[in-house]
């Protein structure tokens, strides 16, 4: 049923795009198939293939014959029918990430009565599009997503799009490893830190001692050693090639513009494991949409990009020159690169990579039984108004040399689940043994959140996101669900509330309930938490314009809260979108029960 456009040149493609202008601009990549908006039924085959990235060829799995899979361009209100044929010798599935649909169409095996598509089988998805925006689709079986099973979904609104652009491009980021993903997981489990080639060494020790002083450096190493944690553990897996629309940095995917045009970039983080810092040096980005949902436009120079999230940005290059789209993984082991240029073949300058952050004790703030005893000389002087209200198992007993002098109004009452998220003016720089010596300097970023943003540049923060359309359900949540993000890094076991998926209890809410979910990140890693089937509203300081998200990136040692109206009955996967975290247990069932009993 779908139209294929074989061998379409870019020029032709643009003409074609012009011809179907009413249905929105269609972006056509050379050699890529595109499903125009009028196509409501399409066939997608899943098959093993080989992918060549920057000249290196490795194994992969494609949907619809390409990696990434074809961009699906639809229109809100349409009913779409997709026949997915499995040509693998194992079960597969396709999950429509961010789409509101009936559970069985969600495509997560083991949930909502959906079963994997067996080898040789065809499964027909059929659903009505109840929303507009940028989304994506990917396999929800084993680690197939890591091997290339991902593609973009663009849904034009039924009414007027509040965003106008002259060009519209999908920018799908991903990470590709030539290794077999099952092997990756095995190595993570049998050899802690296997992929970390930036562990702290004796050489680092002497450098730090020179900078911070010997005593402080020893204290720092002792503090980490006591917890058996690694301050350099930013990403679990390395050896990745970082891709933009399936192209490596050398392949250099290019988006073409004419000076003065508005270019909409629909940026999707389809990585298995990689959180990025994204920027386009010289070109500010106006964020107009987050996770497919329109937001009040906000102009930024860069943003941190959790796995599974999407941001639509507008850029307006006025000069005739190439700009580099640059997305560095937060462990700085590499970058995805593309070019925004007035014609193909241009190359912009590739910026210098930013320093990798060293984690601090603040990133461990939620760790159970965190012993502050080792924080010798910690200055709590500026922690006024800090709420120690809920700190489980914290041992303050052995904090020599602590200055509690001006800790006014502190409540240490019953410490469980301490919230460090809003400690205005807390001075971490006065915590020796925290490797803060050169905070903000060029050669050392300190703490997970330090992206190395230069002074004067604006990095997007969740607090900047404001829904363009007012929230519909303004009821106060009636109850709170605490979801502790937990794990054992040394064993590579990742859990929710301390329980693996196969041993954990489901979360149950009644249909129509308004609830608050409180993520407490007890680990040292950021977790992009993804709920299927429903948007959550991020509590970011907005009252009636909380941004709607399908993935919420919860930083290490932080508490993040969201609200939710449980208006989609079903049994939804609720998990960390880091693939190997999910595979090792960081998932649960979020069950919205029909309210039948009480009626």
């Amino acid at each position, binding site marked *: 049923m779908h139209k294929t456009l074989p061998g379409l040149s870019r020029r032709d493609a643009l003409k074609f795009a012009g011809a179907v202008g009413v249905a929105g601009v269609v972006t056509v990549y050379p050699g890529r198939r595109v499903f125009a908006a009028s196509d409501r039924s399409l066939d997608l085959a899943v098959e093993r293939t080989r992918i060549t990235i920057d000249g290196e060829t490795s194994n992969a799995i494609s949907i619809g014959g390409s990696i990434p899979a074809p961009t699906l361009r639809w229109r809100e209100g349409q009913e779409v029918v997709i026949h997915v044929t499995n040509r693998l010798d194992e079960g597969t599935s396709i999950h429509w990430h961010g789409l509101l649909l*009936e559970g069985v169409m969600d495509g997560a095996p*083991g949930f*909502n009565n959906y*079963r*994997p598509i067996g080898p040789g089988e065809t499964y027909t998805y059929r659903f009505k599009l109840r929303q507009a925006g940028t989304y994506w689709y990917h396999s929800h079986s084993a680690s197939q997503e890591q091997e290339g099973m991902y593609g973009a979904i663009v849904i034009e609104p039924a009414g007027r799009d509040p965003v106008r652009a002259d060009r519209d491009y999908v920018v799908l980021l991903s990470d590709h490893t030539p290794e077999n993903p099952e092997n990756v997981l095995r190595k993570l489990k049998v050899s802690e830190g296997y992929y970390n080639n930036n562990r702290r060494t*004796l*050489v680092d020790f002497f450098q730090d001692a020179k900078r911070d002083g010997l005593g402080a450096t020893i204290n720092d190493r002792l503090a980490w050693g006591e917890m058996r944690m690694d301050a350099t553990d930013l990403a679990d897996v390395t050896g990745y090639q970082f891709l933009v629309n399936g192209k490596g940095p050398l392949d250099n995917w290019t988006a073409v513009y004419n000076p003065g045009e508005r270019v909409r970039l629909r940026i999707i983080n389809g990585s298995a494991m990689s959180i990025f810092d994204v920027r386009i040096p010289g070109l500010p980005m106006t964020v107009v949409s987050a996770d497919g949902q329109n937001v009040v436009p906000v102009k930024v120079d860069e943003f941190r990009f959790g796995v599974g999230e999407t941001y639509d940005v507008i850029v307006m290059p006025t000069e005739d020159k190439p700009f580099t789209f640059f997305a560095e993984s937060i462990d700085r082991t590499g970058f995805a690169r593309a070019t925004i240029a007035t014609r193909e073949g241009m190359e912009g300058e590739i910026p210098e990579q930013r320093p990798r952050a060293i984690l601090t004790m603040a990133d461990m703030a939620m760790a159970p039984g965190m012993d502050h005893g080792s924080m010798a000389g910690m200055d709590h002087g500026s922690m006024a108004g800090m709420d120690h209200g809920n700190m489980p198992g914290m041992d303050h007993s052995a904090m020599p040399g602590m200055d509690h002098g001006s800790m006014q109004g502190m409540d240490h009452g019953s410490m469980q689940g301490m919230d460090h998220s809003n400690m205005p003016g807390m001075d971490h720089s006065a915590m020796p043994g925290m490797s803060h010596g050169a905070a903000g300097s060029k050669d050392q970023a300190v703490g997970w959140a330090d992206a190395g943003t230069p002074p004067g540049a604006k990095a997007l923060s969740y607090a900047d996101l404001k829904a363009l359309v007012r929230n519909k359900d303004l009821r106060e949540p009636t109850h709170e669900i605490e979801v502790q993000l937990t794990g054992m890094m040394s064993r590579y076991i990742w859990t929710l509330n301390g329980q693996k998926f196969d041993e954990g209890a489901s979360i149950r809410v009644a249909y129509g309930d308004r609830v608050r979910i409180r993520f407490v990140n007890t680990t040292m890693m950021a977790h992009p938490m993804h709920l299927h089937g429903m948007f959550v509203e991020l509590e970011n300081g907005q009252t009636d314009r909380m941004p709607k998200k399908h993935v919420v990136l919860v930083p290490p040692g932080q508490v993040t809260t969201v609200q939710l109206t449980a208006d989609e009955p079903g049994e939804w996967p609720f998990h960390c979108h880091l693939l190997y975290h999910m595979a090792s247990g960081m998932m649960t069932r979020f069950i919205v029960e029909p309210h039948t009993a009480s009626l």
Partner: protein
Amino acid sequence: MAGAILLALSVVPAWAAEEHSAEQFHEEPPILGTLLIDRFEHRWRDGENSIDWDVQGWVGGDTNKVWFNAEGSKPVDGDVEEAEFQLLYSRMTSEFWDAQIGIRHDVRPQPQTTYGVIGFQGVAPYFFDVTAQLFVSEDGDFSARLEAEYDLLITQKLILQPVAEVNVSAQRVQELHIGPGFNDIELGLRLRYEVVREFAPYIGVNWERKLGETADIARDHGEDPSDLSLVAGVRFWF
């Protein structure tokens, strides 16, 4: 509201009809395994040079594992002098510790001896890899062993590993030439270069000292209770 109820009802059979299990999703947690040849080395010393080995491996899941240990020594030009094997059931008891129980069988020295083993293995604060084991032999003799090692990263690939081991016995075991109390202490220092994570050649020194009555017994047999050797070997794993 009615519509909502209708919707709710219509969805019930779709998801509530059966009890689900995780089996449809990611397959059961996979059974994994690894085998580490921690030390396979040549030892040069004043007396007879030897080949020594220390191997460990496991098969299992996150919580339950079958654990295997082997260590031994063989003079370059002679028969195996020491060969110990352990087969243990290992169970995760906390984030950093496994409790272990099983059997140990020493093929050498003669007479061959079988022990029951109970112990724990894991990572102590400050990243010390620790193994502590209590043995009871088929004759009812009690002994214990404590082993600790540490990886000091000089660079990402150059790693200095100090090792310490001490053996204790509750009683004299005549045929094995050990006395009560501390039997021996062993200290090693090995510098390895990880060509890849899985393969690292190394050089180092190893020093063993028999203690107390065990040392006396050694002297009575004309042995030097102290043994210093230079070592070179490879560490590799699968």
